[in-house]
């Protein structure tokens, strides 16, 4: 089946099984390896991408379902000013340890901040509760998002 969508700002068209996982299509067809697989069952969030600005687990999303949509991965998002603020804040706060979950957390942070530019602590914790991290204990990621929200005022 022919599927077309906007991937990181570019129109793409591919002929593939619509039931293929979006994760596999992103990694295998487009070499977007910033999208990680940690559990394959929509629990850990390492594969998070934005589909029409909503945070989604690409490991449980059939590629057919994004036909006609906008898909943003870390590789597209990292070109933005917002990303640079988040990256700076994550680095400063110690939010990155092994880094395997980091792209997913950054996408979740973007999804949150685009809805609420100055979220309180509870909203931050809820917004990233779909992403698992075993290294940091989360507090440093929450701090990173707080710093980004402060320093990126006006961007979101």
């Amino acid at each position, binding site marked *: 089946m022919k599927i077309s969508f906007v991937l990181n700002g570019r129109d793409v068209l591919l002929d593939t099984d619509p039931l293929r996982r979006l994760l596999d299509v992103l990694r295998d067809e487009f*070499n*977007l*390896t*910033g*999208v*990680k*697989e*940690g*559990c*394959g*069952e929509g*629990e*850990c969030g*390492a594969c998070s991408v934005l589909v029409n600005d909503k945070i989604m687990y690409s490991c449980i999303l059939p590629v057919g379902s994004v036909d006609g949509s906008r898909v943003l*991965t*870390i*590789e597209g998002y*990292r070109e933005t000013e917002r990303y640079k603020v*988040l*990256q700076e804040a*994550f*680095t*400063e*706060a*110690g939010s*990155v*340890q*092994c*880094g*395997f*979950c*980091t*792209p997913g957390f*950054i996408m979740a942070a973007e999804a949150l901040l685009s809805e609420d530019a100055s979220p309180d602590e509870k909203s*931050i*914790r*809820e917004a*990233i*509760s*779909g*992403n*698992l*991290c*075993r*290294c*940091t*204990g*989360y*507090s*440093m*990621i*929450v701090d990173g998002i707080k710093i980004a929200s402060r320093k990126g005022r006006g961007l979101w």
Partner: protein
Amino acid sequence: MGDYINIGRSVRKIDALSLATGADKFTDDYEIHDPLYIAILYSPVAHAEIKQIDVSAAEKVRGVVDVLYYGNVQRVLHTTAGQGYPEPSPYDALLFDRRVRFVGDRVALAAAETREAAIEAVKKIEVKYRDLEPLFDMEKAMDESAPRIHVDDEYTKIPAEYRPEQNLAAEIKIGFGDLERGFNEADFIEEQSYRMHYASHCAIEPHTSCAYFDDRGRLVIVTATQVPFHVRRIVSTVLDIPVMMIRVIKPRIGGGFGGKQEVILEPLVALVAWRNKRPAKVVMSRKEVFISSRTRHPMRVRLKTGVKRDGRISAIEMDCLMNTGAYGTHALTVLANAGGKVLPLFNKIENLKFHGRSVYTNLPVGGAYRGYGATQGYFAFNQHMDIIARRTDQDITDFFKRWHIREGETSAVFKALGEGKEGVSQVINSCKLDECIDRGAGAIGWHGKRGKRIESGRNRVKGMGMAIAMQGSGIPGIDMAAASMKMNDDGSFNLYVGATDIGTGSDTILAQIAAEVLKIPVEMIIVLSSDTDLTPFDTGAYASSTTYISGGAVEKCAEDIKNQLLDTASVMLKAEKDSLKLDAGKVIDKKTGKKVPYDKIAYHTLYIQDQFQIQAQASCTASESPPPFIAQFAEVDVDRSTGKAEVVKFVSAVDCGQPVNPVLAEGQVEGAVVNGLSYALCEDYIFNSKGRMVNPRFWDYKIYTAADIPEIITIVVNSFEKSGPFGVKSVGEIGINGPAPAVANAIFDAVGVRMYETPMTPEKVWKRMKEEGVN
């Protein structure tokens, strides 16, 4: 200490940027040209002999290239434990065996052109099992009537108690003084058993390995490992491929926590690649990680103490029974640590006995897991001491301060209990545990809240608990790390280390150590780590060794570079070497003020006069293992009607010597704390009656999310460890030891019931309250 430019500063993790952008590569991100994909068939039964195995249907699946099982794979006994050689774990595992010993044991593999074909093929392998009686209860493992799990020629490489005919994978006995006399002198005896359960490391990156050939036909293994050099050695042994034909590369690693100290997948990708002369790749699913990789060893710890009225302990007996599962990986050393990292903390007890046994069962395999036995030992120890402090009417913080080991003191246990062999004597050089206790107590408001049973709502009551712990810094007399450096034209340096950054930030802190010696910003150090062709040796990322031992190698190496810089500068500046010093990327003559920058020195040595390259290498071992210390405090809110214990605040105060990078050190402690809380309260392996784990997925093996965690405070209490580079000790593991006992003590403080068993789920707390009649 104030004049450090890199040590003690939270410089940015050198790989943070490339990790955040998603650009830095993990194993599964390597583009391997045209690999064979491997799928593995696991045993559905806990204990059986394979009567018959038919792979013909699997071989016929389109795209299948190779199917491997015991019938066509060499039989080489080994251990998957990635430890130094000779490994202290028994040689009791084969790549594939006729016998399966747990649900999740490997039966066969299929290698195919696509992942799908490989998965389809393993489903078509027909296996007929002859069921054997399974053994699930570790308490019965040594009974005469118990089924025997290892019946062939398993053996140990080191002299150790190993009796597979009794399902005994390891046994340790030590003691000193006169136990009976000690108990007789006591005013009362306190005796209890404490149990800790299975857990999965849950590194978010699953175990992943791939292998390919370089242009000269050598085998290159890229793998998610904590122990690249042990991987090379073990693969070489198991597959009979010369070490020189193997290169192991460790890319970025998505967390380890001990789980990737096992050499599980590497021999499989190597074997498939070697047989088929094709690249090969395998990625475990989350379910496979849960059922077939490694776990925290469950342990039952019985503590018996003789106690004087004033709280002095006249005798202590520690009896540990550890379930190592189907294979004896780390069976001896985790067991040793349960005593060796715990008992020296109370070093004034004159009469002591430690007896530990690790036994085989038909359950998942234990392995290295952050804390490494100390976690299990401290769960028992800290609750037991809380009981004694209460029985002798003392605040546990005062009790701990009175009895813990101090600077200048030693414990006979250090020598008696090593890891696989006798330990080493050591005197404590640095211990700021009193300050940890005081500052932690202050931060949580201990004295205002403990014992108050403050009502926090209808049927809700608060309690306070605390725990102390020590760990080690590397394995003395066993671990070895090496580093090398060379200078570039622009005054930058390449630093090559065998040390393995698994997400901890060791690349960063090792660069900080080198940069500190050379008085340059950390950005001037280019780190390459863990490539067996390019970097020097290191035993790997385990035993809390990297900062202390690998850091020691880097410091020595950088000191050599410094010496060469001074030699060259003294020629260039026509100055006495003694009057020179390094300062901000230059060598300065203190007498004349003349200076020469590093790039000029490099240029001089590379192109101008008496040409040579400024380069050095150094190795480091340790003759002692200075313990870091920690005090941890939990404030818990218990719902009496449901038994739910919610941690509302958790404080850790840690003495890790001089922290190299405070943010990274705090990150280690906080990560360990959250793992420890999640383990203490909700993570659990649930088995059915046939030994099958029924919850091998994140939605019902629940690990904490950001929404579940309490307020967490981490205090780094500086000390100076004179045996470590720049005064460092370790910090990677220690933080996981306190959460479970601190929470258990807090639950007691709140509702008056002892939780002798983890996880402390609402059901269990509620049941205990029923038993004690307190709700």
